[in-house]
């Protein structure tokens, strides 16, 4: 088998695609296949990760699709950073699948799983690809599955949230396409590495314009401040497993795209400072907004934007430590926020308010414990993963001498602590209505995996140190990237 099908990064996209096309067929044979097939796919993709990622840490794997050398064909770049993200996405996808096995009951289930798989596959493709137009295509795959999933539930206001998202999302895609058109018209190539070498053909003023277009385009997907009006609605409208994926996957993929494009094509100081400032603004505004939310999903959505803002602020430093910290924050956020969304849904259902948490500590002790764990991890209390990620962010900011940034981050941490501790307090200190229903084992198992991840990173932060360092170097070392892609 390994000889017949040599593993390559393209399996990350091809396997989910094959499964998605197969799903309507096997659904006719037996309904139970609908649920099993996505899990098998995610398992296979995880296996691919397990084989390929150690190799990528040694040397990046570069695959040329259809056998054409890069300026002509599309290539996949599977370096340490892309590998990290691809593995993370597949793991999250698997966990969300495990969770939705029992928690997701809304028909049509076959379509739900197809969209779920393609959301993950599209985001993975965005991370892997080395071609800017291909990036656009994968961004659209992710976005269209996200639009459909946002309006998947049938209750009121879901379609409106989806429509808002689709409006802003197609604005984003139009801007990215325009940026690609401008770049192509000046350089005549679409490959990212080739573009990076040919950027001197583009006048500086035009480069600024293109950077603005890409910033708006990817920033909309990455929830950067003035462009994130869709996010709270979409998060609270989508089914909870999907919200977990939005926070964990779509945002991360867009951020990766933004970072990769910025570092390769627009490596001037202003762009990086701008990104950093936008991140800080996002952080402050969304944490303050989260304080006022009654709906738990909206609260988590705003908190999610804040965390992304933190990661962007660290990313904008564009030092090795900064990128390291940003990566750490993104991984931490993907795991913890995913867990929080899933826990809240299991605990209080799709339209959870703060009051819905009252007295849950006694009725659903395991879920409450998990929520508390997640809340502490997000705030950044010491023994959990969040502490180390925040610490690394602060260290990176301190090293570049941005003490004002440190102050802002610390201040927002207090705000964050205020609303998360308030929610946690509701769990244990308030009396509430009796809640009925038991949480199925598969959901608990999915949550336990995430909790184990939080604790593992919390107690052994050194264990992911190597991967993060490699990822940060991979992102920053543009010369290695272009040489690797264009070597022949």
């Amino acid at each position, binding site marked *: 088998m390994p000889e*017949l*099908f*040599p593993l*390559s990064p*393209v399996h990350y996209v*091809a396997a989910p*695609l*094959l499964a*998605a*096309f*197969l799903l*309507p*067929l096997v659904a*006719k044979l037996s309904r139970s296949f609908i649920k099993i097939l996505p899990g098998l796919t995610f398992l296979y993709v995880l296996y691919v990760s397990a084989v390929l990622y150690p190799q990528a840490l040694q040397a990046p794997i570069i*695959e*040329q*699709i*259809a*056998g*054409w050398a890069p*300026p*002509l064909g*599309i290539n996949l770049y599977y370096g340490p950073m892309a590998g990290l993200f691809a593995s993370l996405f597949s793991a999250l996808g698997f966990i969300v699948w495990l969770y939705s096995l029992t928690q997701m009951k809304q*028909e*049509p289930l076959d*379509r739900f799983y*197809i*969209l779920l798989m*393609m959301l993950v596959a*599209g985001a993975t493709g965005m991370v892997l*690809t080395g*071609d800017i*137009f*291909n990036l656009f*295509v*994968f961004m*659209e*795959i992710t976005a*269209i*599955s996200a*639009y*459909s*999933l946002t*309006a*998947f539930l*049938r209750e009121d206001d879901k*379609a409106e949230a*989806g429509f808002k998202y689709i409006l802003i999302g197609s604005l984003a895609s139009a801007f990215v396409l*325009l940026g690609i058109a*401008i770049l192509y018209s*000046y*350089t*005549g*190539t*679409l490959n990212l590495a080739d573009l990076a070498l040919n950027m001197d053909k583009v006048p500086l*003023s*035009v480069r600024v*314009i*293109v950077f*603005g277009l890409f910033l708006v385009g990817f920033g909309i997907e990455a929830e950067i401040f003035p462009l994130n009006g869709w996010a709270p609605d979409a998060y609270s409208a989508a089914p909870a497993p999907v919200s977990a994926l939005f926070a964990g996957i779509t945002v991360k993929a867009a951020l990766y795209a933004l970072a990769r494009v910025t570092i390769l094509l627009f490596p001037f100081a202003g762009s990086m400072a701008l990104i950093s400032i936008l991140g800080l603004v996002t952080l402050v505004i969304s944490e303050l907004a989260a304080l006022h939310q009654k709906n738990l999903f909206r609260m988590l959505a705003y908190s999610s934007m804040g965390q992304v803002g933190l990661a962007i602020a660290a990313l904008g430093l564009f030092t090795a430590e900064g990128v390291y910290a940003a990566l750490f924050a993104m991984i931490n956020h993907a795991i913890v926020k995913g867990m929080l969304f899933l826990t809240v849904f299991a605990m209080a259902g799709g339209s959870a308010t703060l009051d819905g948490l009252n007295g849950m500590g006694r009725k659903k002790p395991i879920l409450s414990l998990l929520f508390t764990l997640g809340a502490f991890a997000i705030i950044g209390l010491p023994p959990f993963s969040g502490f180390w990620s925040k610490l690394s962010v602060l260290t990176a900011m301190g090293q570049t001498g941005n003490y004002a940034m440190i102050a802002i981050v610390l201040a927002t941490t207090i705000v964050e602590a205020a609303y998360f501790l308030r929610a946690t307090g509701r769990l244990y200190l308030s009396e509430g209505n009796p809640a009925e229903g038991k949480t199925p084992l598969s959901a608990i198992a999915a949550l336990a995996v995430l909790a184990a991840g939080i604790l593992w990173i919390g107690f052994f932060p050194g264990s992911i140190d190597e991967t993060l360092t490699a990822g940060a170097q991979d992102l920053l070392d543009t010369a290695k990237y272009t040489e690797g892609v264009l070597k022949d």
Partner: protein
Amino acid sequence: MKKLLAAFLLGFIGYYLYTAFAGVPFGENKMEVGKDYLETTVPKTGAVNTVTSIVVNYRGFDTLGEVTVLFLAATGLGAILFGMKGKPEDKHREPSSILTTGAKALFPIIVLLGAYIFIHGHLTPGGGFQGGTIIATGVLILILGIKSFHANHALLSVMESLAGITFVVAGILGLAFGKNFLENILPLGTPGQVLSAGIIPIIYIAVGFKVGAELAGVLDTLMSTTRGEE
């Protein structure tokens, strides 16, 4: 007020886009990659139509993504509109018998033309997407012309799945033969013949069936949510 603000924003965006394109000479040869495509397409891919060879071969991964986007749109449409039916009270006027007869007569012609377009995708300015759209047009005229016509969704989804699987398997076969994903494994043949260009016609035929089935499904889904049945 809102209009003024919008106009200001438009002026802003328009001005900067204009400055961005002011440096791009119109109608001059500024090809970099394009030249290589034009020069290598006939000897290396066997396809006569350069656009087709770019779409299916050089940048075939884009097309895989594109097919997926369309598939997702059909899937998402079904998910969003699941269970929605037109109400019996908004009954619609029946088509005239001339239109019904005409639709039945024209349907096979249009489908044949669609098939012609996507089979000759590597020779003429056609291709899978264009041909598939024509086939969906054929289904549209049945929807328009025949009273309470419904497409066979089971058949459409089987067609769609099989075509999609063909595309992915054609890609994976490249891997299985020790080459790259989507790489050509068939002989190139004589350029200009129908049976040439390796896997390009196979992929484009699959794409044609897939696009036709998907668009027909989309049209039928949209139509059945608004059309009242008695």
